[in-house]
């Protein structure tokens, strides 16, 4: 059983937000519109956070692209009263939009603020949307799914072509788009996969590691240093 994970190299990341927009296009994430945006209700499964370090009194800035970290021990799933968010066997933390009652407990519980709520009906089905991903109604929570539908498609394809499914065929939209090749995706359980190799790099670290959420999105620090 694969264990899907992602490595993001902060040394390469230029904060360009290609991943953000790629995600929006791939996953039918609506633009919430001017009014709602100003009310801080933008939905952005992938969000580029900007860290200004204080010592250099804001001189240094660092971009941290933040998808759902797909925690291996996710605090968000435990608190869901209806199993509308859960960790699947391959480690992907999923949402069931049709079941979510919109209590937003998972949002309150996620230490990384990776979950977003549909405060209104932001969009209807329409042209330009990706038919592989459902359009969310008002009142439910959504978040990065590691582009799970792409995994399903890749598997289906392999099946149709009567060959083994090759993990390299499963690439999320953000990783595919990243113009600095800062996002590497793959099977962490396979020691020779690139993502597993990078995850062992001396530059590797996890966000809020001390919380013990065991994120499967791993970051590489900026600057010199091996790896």
């Amino acid at each position, binding site marked *: 059983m694969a264990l899907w994970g992602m490595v993001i190299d902060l040394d390469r990341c230029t904060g360009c937000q290609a991943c953000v927009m790629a995600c929006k296009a791939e996953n039918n994430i609506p633009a919430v519109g001017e009014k709602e945006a100003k009310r*801080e209700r*933008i939905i952005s499964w992938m969000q580029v956070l900007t*860290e*200004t370090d204080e010592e250099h009194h804001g001189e240094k800035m660092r971009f941290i692209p933040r998808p759902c970290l797909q925690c291996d021990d996710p605090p968000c799933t435990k608190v869901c*009263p209806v199993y509308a968010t859960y960790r699947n066997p391959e480690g992907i933390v999923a949402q069931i939009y049709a079941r979510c009652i*919109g*209590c937003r407990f998972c949002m309150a519980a996620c230490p990384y603020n990776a979950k977003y709520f*549909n405060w*209104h009906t932001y969009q209807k089905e329409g042209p330009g949307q990706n038919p592989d991903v459902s359009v969310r109604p008002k*009142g439910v929570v959504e978040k990065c799914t590691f582009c799970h539908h792409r995994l399903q498609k890749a598997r289906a394809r392999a099946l149709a072509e009567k060959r083994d499914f090759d993990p390299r065929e499963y690439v999320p939209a953000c990783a595919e788009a990243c113009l600095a090749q800062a996002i590497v995706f793959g099977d962490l359980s396979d020691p020779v996969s690139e993502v597993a190799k990078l995850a062992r790099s001396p530059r590797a670290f996890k966000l809020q590691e001390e919380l013990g959420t065991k994120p499967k999105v791993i970051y590489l620090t900026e600057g010199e240093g091996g790896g």
Partner: protein
Amino acid sequence: MADTADGPDQTLLRPIAETGRGFYWAVALLSIPILWGALAYSVQFYEGLGVTGLHQPVSWGFYVTNFVFFIGISHAGTLISAILRLSKAEWRRPITRMAEVITCMVLFIGASQILVDLGRPDRLLNVILHGRYQSPLLWDATSISAYMMASLTYLYLPMIPDIAILRDRLGKRKLFYSVLALGWTGTERQQRILNRAIAIMAVLVIPIAVSVHSVVSFVFSMTLQPMWHSTIFGPYFVVGAIFSGIAALIVAMIIFRKAYGLQHYLKPIHFRYLGQLLLVMALLWFYFTFAEYLTGYYGAEPEELKVFWAKFTGPFWPFFWGMVLCNFVVPLACLVSLKHHTVGKVLTASLFVIVGMWLERFIIVVPTLSFPRLPFPEGIYWPTWVEWGETAGSFGLFALFYLLFTKFFPIISIWEIREGREGLKEVEERLITYLPDEAEERT
């Protein structure tokens, strides 16, 4: 003996017997916030939660605050009356009913806050269909419904004899009362069973009550969030709950004392005792608050501190210091000496405590969400007219329920008062048993 319910206790039946202009005025007045709340919710139901001031990252606000607050109030009654009953505190007799009613009414209001807070109230059933017991929300659902059942029974049992009185003495609603009276005639046997049942319920209700506010606190303390993830949240919440409960009880007592002229029943002594109880709770509450914040501050974990300072000096300082003022400073000032103007002082203290405890709930829910761990924009939350309306409506509805109750049932337990009067002899004997035996003293 039920037929001899004449004498002084007439006053207790009057509000049920006749309805004055005052009542209609009160109803009219209360319907204003209630209608506002109704409008607010219907708008929210169709538009979605977007009509509130909630956003990313402050996904919980007034509704969750109200939930915690009202459930807290609910500890007034049942818990207090149970404790007093078990400890055979004689002065309890005119108070218990009022307390129990508060509990039952406010529990419904509190529980419904969660429904109001849902993005998809239409899917509430999923909680039963797909319930996940790992979620503290289900713990809440369970213990709150248990508490509801218990409280209702515990309210109902002691009412049976009075209902019988109403059935016999009151001209109207004969059928209604006779059904509820369960054919009570007040025989020795009935009396014995009743007292027994009441005693059992009293014992039962206390652990349930304690569990309720503990699990409510678990909604927060089970997460990893700064200033939520705390082991003392359980007792802290329970203490706060009883604290606010007593305050609410006192206010209710004073209102009805005035409205229904119950001065002979609710004497300054009652308020002095309750005032002292309130003072004790204020000290306890302060102790917990102090412990909670000191550990946060001393541990100095950066995320914790971010929230800590947000409350102390940051955007939330007015709420935080307002809370300290209302829950500690004012009550202390009012309650240290209750020799004179007892009622006035106790009332002031209680009103402040109610506001203060609401602020405390707010200051627990919102700041933590406003200051996420990762470098996010800090979201400052401000409620919209919808949330204000829903809150006003909730208070209004509570008051209305309470008022209506008093129009159907005596707000002071007639038979218990009477039992008190008749039982003076027995009480005296009991008191003697507390004292050292004279015989032994001689030897």
